[in-house]
């Protein structure tokens, strides 16, 4: 039987103002397969998808959809041919109902009257949600009140309602809990049986090896190759991606651990978390695991003075800190790298220089006036120290890749010479090479006695990086585990409230 490709992209090239981002890329999607698209940030994955769906025009190459050459000029045309993209930032309008979201832009009306046939819309929504196996989502639920996982299901249902044949998913699991990921995979598998194809863009190697059939790898806009998942290995894919052997994923950490430097005692915030107490030692990395909604981020934001606490104290070297405002914590030498890089970490349309300076005004100014030479020196030193790939300090951070943006955020905090550094999901949306660089930076800091608190939802990361692991469940600490006794199973048990 001949293998039929729904999408064939041949020798695709694209450049933006002289900068070539795709250099002769080949990519094809067969009927009923799950095809992973992988590469480091900036490798050209999203550009390739944008060229496919007509957001960008191609400079060169051929795109065939179901055997016919296609020249889409906007995503609507691609959608008509059954190609639908589900973005990482979901396209859901929170204050509309599930049914209204499902039929957004294609509402059913009584004839041409313009009057909505709400009954039919709700019925059809119910039917498609049921077929997808998510009958627990009701058509008149407010979309904004659903979990991210369920919102994603609504988007998939919407895609199927428009007869999607190829669904392109960009980092679909980044914001999902393990249980939600499991049900997403079930849905993907069953749709695959029905002949729907998926393009699966992700940085999570384990997931790709779990559900994908083939994998295509890009590096620096170049097509590196396409492999059958069954015939390839983890190491090979990594090597194709970074162009070199990466070695161990987690660099060895064996620095001496000192005295307790940071203490949190009985910290509470009504309805969010309760009686949180823990310590961190100099040179130690404390991993914080838990499911989404366990209150990990909220605890850290409260420690940092960004949220109001109800009770409890935070101490540095035995001295109680005033947690009424982040500025006080920063002055004491505590840094906080937030989970939401774009929403809370960076001023996206500002330059690298301006972003790094935000936390470092004390160092770079004199009587409230910025000293240019000091600012440039600080920024350039940090860019060099962290190997930020950039055209220079005046580059706007928006135009950097995810990994490099994250390095800018880290730079901003290294500038204050922190004694305690809190990192919330430091490697989310960051490619595998940059991940390792971030672990290395963390190790370097601990060698100098910095205490690190790292929230992470990736269990291999928590296990690979931490000296000690704190697990949270529904606003409470459910376990402390030492590195040598911790396993994925133990963490998951504590995170789900079991014993």
């Amino acid at each position: 039987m001949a293998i039929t490709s729904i999408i064939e992209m041949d020798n695709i090239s694209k450049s933006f103002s002289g900068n070539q981002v795709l250099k002769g890329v080949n990519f094809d999607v067969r009927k009923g397969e799950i095809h992973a698209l992988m590469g480091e940030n900036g490798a050209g994955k999203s550009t390739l998808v944008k060229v496919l769906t007509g957001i960008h025009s191609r400079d060169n190459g051929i795109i065939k959809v179901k055997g016919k050459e296609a020249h889409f000029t906007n995503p609507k045309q691609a959608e008509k041919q059954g190609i639908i993209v589900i973005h990482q930032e979901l396209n859901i309008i929170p204050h509309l109902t599930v049914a209204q979201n499902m039929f957004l832009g294609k509402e059913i009306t009584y004839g041409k009257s313009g009057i909505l046939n709400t009954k039919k819309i709700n019925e059809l929504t119910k039917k498609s949600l049921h077929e997808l196996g998510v009958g627990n989502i009701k058509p008149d639920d407010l979309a904004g009140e659903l979990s991210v996982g369920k919102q994603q299901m609504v988007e998939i249902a919407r895609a199927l309602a428009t007869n999607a044949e190829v669904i392109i998913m960009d980092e679909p699991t980044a914001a999902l809990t393990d249980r939600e990921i499991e049900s997403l995979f079930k849905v993907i598998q069953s749709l695959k049986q029905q002949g729907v194809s998926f393009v699966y863009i992700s940085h999570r190697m384990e997931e790709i090896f779990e559900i994908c059939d083939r994998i295509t790898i890009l590096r620096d806009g170049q097509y590196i190759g396409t492999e059958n998942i069954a015939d390839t290995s983890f190491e090979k894919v990594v090597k194709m991606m970074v162009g070199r052997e990466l070695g161990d994923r987690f660099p060895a950490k064996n620095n001496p651990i000192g005295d307790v430097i940071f203490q949190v005692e009985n910290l509470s915030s009504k309805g969010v978390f309760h009686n949180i107490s823990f310590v961190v030692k100099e040179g130690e990395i404390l991993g914080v695991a838990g499911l989404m909604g366990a209150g990990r981020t909220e605890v850290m934001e409260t420690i940092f003075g960004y949220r109001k606490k109800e009770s409890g104290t935070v101490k540095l070297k035995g001295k109680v800190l005033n947690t009424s405002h982040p500025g006080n914590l920063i002055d004491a030498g505590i840094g906080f790298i937030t989970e939401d890089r774009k929403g809370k970490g960076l001023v996206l349309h500002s330059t690298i220089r301006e972003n790094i300076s935000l936390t470092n005004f004390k160092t770079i100014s004199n009587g409230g006036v910025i000293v240019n030479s000091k600012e440039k020196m600080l920024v350039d030193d940090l860019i060099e120290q962290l190997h930020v790939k950039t055209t220079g300090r005046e580059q706007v951070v928006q135009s950097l890749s995810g990994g490099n943006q994250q390095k800018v955020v880290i730079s901003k905090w290294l500038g204050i010479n922190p004694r305690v550094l809190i990192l919330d999901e430091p490697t989310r949306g960051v490619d595998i090479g940059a991940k390792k660089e971030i672990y290395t930076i963390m190790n370097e800091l601990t060698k100098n006695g910095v205490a690190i608190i790292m929230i992470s939802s990736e269990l291999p990361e928590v296990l690979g990086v931490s000296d000690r692991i704190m697990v949270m469940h529904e606003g409470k600490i459910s376990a402390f585990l030492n590195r040598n006794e911790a396993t994925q199973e133990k963490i998951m048990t504590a995170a789900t409230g079991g014993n």
Partner: protein
Amino acid sequence: MKNYIKNNLSIIGPLVGLIIFSIILGFMSNNFLTLNNILNLFRQVSVNALIAFGMTFVILTAGIDLSVGSTLALGSALTAGLLTSGMDPLLAVLIGLLIGLALGAINGLIIAKGKVAPFIATLATMTIYRGVTLVYTDGKPITGLSDSFTFEMIGGGYVFGIPFPVILMFIAFIILYFVLRKTVFGRQVYAIGGNEEAAKLSGIKADRVKIWVYSLTGMLSVLAGIIISSRLNSAQPTAGTTYELDAIAAVVIGGTSLAGGKGKIVGTLIGALIIGVIDNGLNLLNVSSFYQQIVKGGIILLAVLLDRSSDK
């Protein structure tokens, strides 16, 4: 050089516009490009420019201040009251400026601490301040403020042939340019408009910065008001009505984004000059003020549309 142009792209558009308008008007009217008219034009512009400088700070924090016109009226009426009571003019003016600072600070407090959207907060205070002005003046102008040289100088004086308000405008410009470009405070203003949450998490006291920004605008508005009352030797209860629109227009024409975080005070100066050139030029050409409004509105629209297309 290339970098320089790139960094100042948002200014080049308005600047080219200003030059083109000036050349066209220069051809159409023999009086336009005379030294006298140019000085006169700058003097006319100075009032709007001073308010617009403050508005630039406000808009950079992603805010808006609709109360500037009412603040101008209330501040200058209270200053006029002090003057007619026989207070030393310099002292009266200083107190007037502090009143402006306080009126602005009230805006800032409502917005930062009360968490009210700037549009709503200043819409309310715009009405309140105007009402207080009308109550205080009983709806009548306060006249015969002072015949002291000091007070007349503010609105009507000249230094080396340059109108004093123009000098005040340039002094304010230089100081504020420096504040925005070179100080920590300036950086904080941009950061708050760019991403308030990131700014707060970087230890910036966003509330405090906002209160200062609105206070500054209040003070500059009253300064503009005092310039007007010095020229007229009277304070009008309806002074400054719709001035907020010209100030916002100058900021927007000058390329500052209403979404905050992006913009330059040089742009605002150019924007204010463009509005002044149009007003002045069309007056010289005897175009009715009805048509002037249409032209002005059209130019605001054009400026924003051009700004949009250069963003892409």
